């Protein structure tokens, strides 16, 4: 079932920069899709357009089954420094008018799902970069959204932390089966995570090609070192080079 249809979308900013031009993309319900492209190709803008945070200059975004609840994870953890981990995760529920006791229970559960049980009363400044990102993911998932949009969420983290978060994210996705749209500029990350990769051109961005990653889940360390993985990375890399040359 199709969840989102992006149809020939363009975005021109007030300063005249054309971020997107004729971008089209279908997103299936329940899939894990990566959007791969070079820096500044309009990937983030595409994500914001889908989220409804900014209007398109041309084209439409269709929701055949209606616009569902969605979660958004930014490149930075984007936590409120004056609130504990629990209060940060509670925020979407609080803004949605959920009663205090229920939202505390659900926020604690969401923290537990990202491996942060016991850190409810911790302040953001006391958490490491990876843990802050986990809080951010818990906050995005606390409303149990059908669609989770992630804008290079692990780009600022070190390699070891990123690997663990990738594995944990996949586990969460398999357990809860939200639709995941993961923006990245890393070929390796996109191949490891997703079922399908949409490759974008340089600015003004549009989706130039798509690549299916047929490997089964759960994907583990073993998949990350397999010949199949290496071959798929080569393929994705070639498509990315093509997209950048186009």
């Amino acid at each position: 079932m199709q969840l989102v249809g992006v149809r020939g979308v363009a975005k021109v900013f007030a300063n005249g920069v054309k971020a997107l031009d004729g971008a089209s993309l279908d997103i299936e319900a329940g899939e894990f899709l990566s959007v791969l492209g070079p820096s500044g190709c309009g990937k983030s803008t595409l994500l914001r357009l889908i989220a409804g945070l900014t209007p398109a200059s041309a084209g439409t975004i269709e929701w055949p089954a209606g616009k569902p609840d969605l979660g958004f994870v930014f490149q930075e953890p984007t936590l409120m420094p004056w609130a504990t981990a629990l209060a940060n995760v509670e925020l979407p529920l609080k803004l949605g008018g959920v009663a205090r006791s229920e939202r505390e229970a659900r926020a604690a559960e969401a923290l537990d799902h990202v491996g942060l049980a016991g850190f409810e009363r911790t302040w953001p400044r006391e958490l490491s970069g990876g843990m802050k990102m986990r809080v951010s993911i818990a906050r995005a998932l606390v409303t149990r959204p059908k669609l989770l949009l992630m804008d290079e969420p692990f780009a600022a983290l070190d390699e070891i932390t990123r690997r663990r978060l990738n594995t944990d994210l996949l586990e969460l996705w398999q357990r809860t089966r939200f639709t995941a749209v993961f923006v990245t500029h890393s070929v390796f990350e996109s191949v490891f995570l997703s079922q399908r990769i949409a490759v974008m051109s340089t600015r003004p961005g549009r989706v130039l090609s798509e690549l299916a990653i047929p490997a089964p889940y759960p994907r583990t360390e073993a998949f990350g070192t397999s010949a199949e993985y290496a071959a798929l990375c080569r393929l994705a890399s070639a498509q990315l080079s093509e997209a950048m040359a186009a």
Partner: protein
Amino acid sequence: MTARFIAPAVMGLLMLVLWEAIVRLAEIPPYVLPGPVAVARTLVADWGMLAPALGVTLTITLEALAAAVIVGVLLAVLFSLSRWVELSLFPYAIILQVTPIVAIAPLIIAWANDVDLSLLICAWLVAFFPILSNTILGLRSVDHNLLALFELYGAGRWKTLIYLRLPAALPYFLGGLRISGGLALIGAVVAEFVAGTGGNASGLAYRILEAGYQLRIPRMFAALVLISAAGIAIYLLLSLLSHLLLRRWHESAIGPEE
């Protein structure tokens, strides 16, 4: 930590000893420059007269500061909610700020027709601008992604204000408050001086004027010591308040290796 207190204390003590020594050795008469011992003695002897004066000045200062907080924060919130209100009013706030209070104090005193009220207005005029400008800066210094997040979850202006903009502005507001605390005292004293020349005031500044006319220089110094002490106390109290409110989360209240 201890060096922070011992170093200035030793320095201050040395200066006082030096001051007393110079006054005694050069036999400077007290109506030119009283030594610290004479000032301390006067402070004790005149306490019955100076304490109520201190009370009057402090009352005006604190009332003015409270009014500055209320008006400053309300205006800042209003400005942040409406670009048009800000564009129309902010230049006048600046004009109020840059006009020397000594120059308009006589007018205010003549118009208000009530000494306490006019002093309050003067002190408030001096104190409110740092709170206004700092709070505006704080309300605007919100993480753009957090704003996007609030928009995503359908939070309206009010929820965004209460749960996001106001907490984000708190450190800036507290910075402004610390400046305004001192300024409210200065405003109160300056206004008392202006009002005092008309002979109808009872605060510390008026006592200084009065002592000056009577050539009671030690009393002038004693009153001056009280004003300084009041200013330092206000600053320390506001710093403590700021620390208590921010120690959990803001960089300014957290040591580098905590």
